């Protein structure tokens, strides 16, 4: 029974020989041999050797009857399941054996048999499984373990026969509501109901009353870690607190779970708390501290888990104007041994965290990464610096540009190219601020090889020709071997040359334009490029020949129009953000995209309505514990606001549409990776906290 031999492809006949050959010798020998042979079968199923293995079915059936060894039984069931999921019909013969196991008095065997029944997508099996489960749930005195398995098996049966599963849902409700069964069975019922409701679009969203939720939360001490995790997961959205105190109470219960050693439990607790925070009007600063601390503690996990946590931190940083968690930037500094995906995510975090006060530290770090041995990393770092300059105000941009210039001095090819690429963006944001600096870049012309940096440089030259005295020379470098350039560079050269011509029509530029038109229309085989070249050609000749139709100003407007100032907007649409926040820890939180974009069939989660729901996420007040009780000013404001009570609209209905600040288009957040799509039409409006909203919220509280 050397194991080397177990794990290799066999012919059915070989194994059959193994199974039968030994029957004459001692009984003990037989069991061993047979087990080894059975293991070979399982190994072969893993290898995907189905065609051969199916032939052994009659032999397996034979053993099934005679053996009462658990391991053999297990293998038999495993075999039937594997074959069954591929060829359901062929396993019908095993039906009597399975039924016999199902009726036995051994719990393990019953569970095994039930699992086999459920796993085979064939009506006969499904039928029997249902009969068994119905019998089981109606009989009150069944073992909890069996009941739990039966309840979970409904999740699978739902794929085969949805209607029948739904007919059982009332019983599940009963189990959850009435506290009849043992805690883990209750959780099983809860989780099953939750998943069923979530999976089927037709069903109403699953909901629980606050009382039931309290009851469930009470059993946490009796649950194992995974059940706790499931419970906290299921409670998000399904339970709707109707008063502030309910929400507080539940937050308090969940807070202690943040300290669970199981990452899954603590992240679910975090999710639950964040959900509940939408239903309170103020939270103590100690709670936010604990949240932040638990997030920090989670960052010590293995890199894969850390990745997920980091992605969710990004989400938390995005959701509120003033993030609910306060994490020091140093936690996001990159370690040299981080895997690439962690490095990327940390860079994103740094980018999001950057503000005037943290910028110096972040810039220092980024500068270090820019000199990293890893080329990709240093490029990304340079890009991040550039994006920060665009994101933050002009003073910060000064620092960023200084850093970039300093980095450029090293003269490393790829760094310089990257710097030029990002510098174009900086120039677009601050068109007149860095005139002096851009002259410096002209000395790096030799380094520029890549299309993107070439494009950037061409744009810079053509746009700032008035300060670059040698622009014609610079431009000549680019058109030296124009036919070999990639299409995007050809396009930008064409545009730039026309732009230069319109700006300052000199014979030299005119010459260039003409040669370009000629080459692009006659020699280059790109129809788009040819089309554009013709278009410009026509345009220029029209301006020359019939100035009454197209005068110089109009031409200038067409060719060299005013560009919109670019913005890097790290805000997402609030509706999407809300959905993302409710989906912490799921795949949406990794891609930061709404559910519908990733999986069409899935339901969209949204905050359920409740009289205590906060209309505005940013209206949450973080208080310092001692001030809560006796804050005369707040009372005062409460008082004065009572006059405006009548014009408080009910929070029900479209609460988001009433908010003026949020009609900005949603934008991609992953600005650091890949190409930037940074242009946005509307300049950033600073979201000021509206005093009226504040009053409304305060009065609501009083009202209650």
């Amino acid at each position, binding site marked *: 029974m050397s194991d080397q031999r177990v794990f290799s492809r066999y012919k059915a006949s070989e194994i059959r020989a193994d199974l039968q050959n030994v029957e004459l010798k001692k009984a003990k020998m037989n069991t061993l041999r047979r087990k080894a042979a059975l293991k070979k079968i399982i190994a072969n199923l893993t290898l995907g050797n189905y065609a051969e293995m199916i032939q052994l079915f009659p032999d397996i059936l034979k053993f099934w009857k005679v053996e009462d060894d658990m391991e053999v039984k297990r293998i038999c069931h495993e075999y039937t399941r594997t074959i069954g999921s591929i060829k359901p019909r062929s396993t019908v013969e095993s039906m009597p054996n399975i039924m016999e196991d199902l009726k036995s008095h051994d719990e393990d065997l019953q569970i095994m048999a039930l699992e086999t029944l459920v796993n085979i997508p064939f009506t006969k099996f499904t039928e029997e499984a249902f009969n068994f489960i119905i019998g089981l749930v109606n009989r009150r005195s069944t073992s909890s373990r069996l009941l739990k398995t039966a309840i979970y098996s409904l999740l699978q049966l739902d794929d085969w026969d949805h209607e029948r599963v739904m007919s059982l849902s009332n019983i599940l409700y009963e189990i959850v509501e009435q506290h009849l069964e043992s805690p883990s069975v209750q959780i099983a019922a809860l989780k099953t109901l939750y998943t069923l409701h979530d999976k089927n679009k037709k069903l109403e969203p699953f909901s629980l009353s606050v009382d039931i939720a309290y009851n469930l939360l009470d059993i946490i001490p009796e649950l194992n870690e995974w059940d706790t*995790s499931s419970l906290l997961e299921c409670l998000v959205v399904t339970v709707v607190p109707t008063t502030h105190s309910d929400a507080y109470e539940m937050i308090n219960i969940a807070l202690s779970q943040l300290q669970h050693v199981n990452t899954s439990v603590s992240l*679910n607790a975090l999710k639950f708390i964040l959900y509940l925070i939408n239903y309170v009007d103020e939270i103590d600063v100690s709670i936010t501290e604990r949240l932040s601390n638990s997030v920090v503690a989670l960052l010590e996990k293995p890199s894969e888990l850390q990745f997920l946590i980091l992605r969710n931190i990004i989400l938390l940083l995005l959701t509120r104007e003033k993030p609910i968690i306060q994490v020091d930037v140093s936690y996001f500094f990159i370690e040299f041994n981080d895997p690439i995906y962690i490095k990327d995510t940390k860079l994103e975090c740094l980018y999001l965290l950057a503000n005037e006060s943290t910028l110096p530290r972040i810039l220092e770090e980024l500068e270090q990464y820019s000199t990293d041995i890893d080329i990709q990393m240093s490029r990304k770092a340079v890009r991040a610096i550039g994006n920060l300059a665009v994101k933050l105000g002009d003073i910060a941009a000064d620092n960023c540009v200084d850093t970039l210039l300093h980095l450029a001095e090293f003269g490393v090819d790829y760094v310089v190219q990257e710097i030029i690429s990002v510098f174009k963006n900086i120039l677009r944001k601050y068109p007149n601020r860095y005139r002096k600096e851009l002259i410096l870049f002209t000395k790096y012309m030799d380094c520029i090889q890549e299309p993107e940096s070439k494009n950037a440089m061409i744009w810079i030259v053509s746009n700032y020709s008035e300060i670059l005295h040698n622009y014609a020379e610079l431009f000549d470098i680019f058109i030296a071997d124009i036919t070999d350039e990639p299409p995007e560079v050809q396009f930008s050269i064409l545009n730039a040359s026309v732009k230069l011509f319109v700006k300052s029509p000199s014979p030299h530029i005119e010459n260039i334009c003409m040669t370009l038109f000629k080459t692009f229309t006659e020699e280059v085989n790109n129809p788009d490029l040819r089309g554009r070249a013709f278009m410009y050609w026509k345009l220029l000749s029209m301006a020359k020949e019939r100035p009454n139709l197209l005068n110089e100003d109009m031409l200038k407007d067409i060719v060299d129009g005013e560009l919109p100032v670019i913005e890097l907007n790290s805000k997402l649409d609030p509706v999407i953000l809300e959905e993302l926040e409710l989906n912490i820890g799921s*795949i949406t939180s990794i891609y930061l995209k709404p559910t519908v974009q990733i999986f069409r069939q899935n339901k969209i*989660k949204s905050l359920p309505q409740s009289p205590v729901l906060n209309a505005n996420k940013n209206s949450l007040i973080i208080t310092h514990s001692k001030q809560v009780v006796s804050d005369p000013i707040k009372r005062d404001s409460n008082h004065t606001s009572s006059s405006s009570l009548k014009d408080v609209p009910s929070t029900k209905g479209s609460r988001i549409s009433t908010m003026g600040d949020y009609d900005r288009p949603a934008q991609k957040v992953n600005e650091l990776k890949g190409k930037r799509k940074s242009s946005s039409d509307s300049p950033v409006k600073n979201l000021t906290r509206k005093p009226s909203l504040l009053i409304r919220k305060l009065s609501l509280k009083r009202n209650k």
Partner: protein
Amino acid sequence: MTSALYVLSENLESLICKNIKALPSIEYPVQQFQKVYQSNQSPVIHYENIMTFVHIRRDSLIFLAVVDRLDSFLMEILTYLDQFYELLKSYLDVKTLNRRLLLDNCTLVMELIDESLDYGVIQVTDSGIMRDYIRIKVNVPELSTNGEGNSDNIEVCSCSSSSSESESGNEPGKPKQKKKHKHKHKHRHKHDTKKKTVQDTKKDIEDLTKNVVGTLSSDPLTLIDKNRKKKSKNDIEDMIEEEDANNFMNSDIAKTTIMAVSWRTKGIHYAKNEFFLDVIEKVEYLMDFTSNVIRKNSIHGEIVCKSFLSGMPTLKVSINKILDQDKQFLTNCKFHQCVPTEDIEKAKEIEFIPPDGPFVLCKYDLKRHVRDEPMVKLTSFEIKPKFKKFKLKMYITIETHFKTTNSTSQLNLKIPIKHILHDYTIDLSKNIKFKCDEGRILFNVSDDFLLWEIDSMKGGHGENKLSMGVEFALFNKAEYAREQEELKNSMNPPPLRQGPKLEELYRQVHEHDPEGHTNDLIMAPAPPPVIDQPVTKLEDKDRLLKLSFEIPYLTASGLKIEYLKIEEPQLEYQSFPWVRYKIVSDPEYTYLIY
């Protein structure tokens, strides 16, 4: 929820696959995964709006879960995969997993998956509890050779099954433990005497080699039998006892997972009731020595316990940090599921029912202040080239910063010298001179580092210092030329050299280096020296001076167990609590030099 689970080998070949949700094809997902996977990819890959791959990489294996629905809580799955890996390790009782091991135990792994997942819903991952459910023999490589000596095996088997049969009346159909390996037996005693296990493993290895010799000879069975017979007599008796212990299955066990105290079974009994509590603090420190910036200064603490207590004992542990309401500690500690976390902030002690066997009671991560001195501090690192004398000297000084009454039980410095070898032309044909206050210095030729081994160093507050110095010889071109010249002209044979020929060793070791270090050094009888430096890649790790040490009886954070009470109201036995403290250096206790 997980719809299929795979364990893949390094080259993405599927070793174990488990179809959890009856997918029509179990191969399809893995084929798609092979297409999209690149090394170093983020652990979550979303594929074509159909499924999501969640994978983690451990050892040389990839654990892959295929998730069918989008809003599944991925954290749960990632954590599960991570814990499943830990579970496998503890089950197979190995430090690292490999392909072979999994293939050998494929039925066991399948069963573990079966038991830990119900239709994709995670149930249990605690190895202590799992052990009660699944009692398949573990097939570890050393032992698999036993299969050759069939006679021996069967003998063991027969006595075990007889004992299990006798019990089968009590609990019919419980998974029976058919065979029990000596291996487990050893495992039991591991806690008590480490030395013994070492000896045992040695013995095992001997056995193994004998077995191999045996199989090679013409009549394997007889040979093996001979060397077995001596052992087997005493062994089997032991084993029968072991078997009994292992086959005895409490009928309460099956209900464990659904009981209130889900981490401990009823009816545990030990002759001697002991509880070991180890506070182990890993200190992490990263300092850029060139720019004098401290990057990291933190403590990763763990309270590791081993419980050998009968019945359902309640433990009361008082930790000074909780008593003092240490904010940083309270917010950063994570407790095992057996500790009720509700009132930790208010209570003075933590009260819990411990699981059986080893477990981690608490984990905490604390930041130290930047000004807090590291336990062992590098105070100076200098490289002084003296080109005139063709010498290069390197000096290192360290000092300790902890209580004077304690001392390190182990202290090693790993000094990378790749940079030196890279930047200077070192003549290895001349001896490297070492000098140090204490301990010894070794030169690792293949990985280019010096190892300074100091076993014990007393604590202090900066006053206790140790230093070392190394002198390399730089290549002297003129001298080399002169010697060559002399050799050519004189009739004398070349002078005899004593000691190892380092330069040759070095060349041999680095010969197969793809980066071509061979040119770095000047070898005495080598082809004419090449002075121009090749472009070698110096990685970050070559810039890190690494310290590894252990300081027993001390905690870096000042954590102290005030008292540890064990109470078992029903049995009221005498019990022995043991508390130990230890500081260990993290693998990242490093100084960035160069």
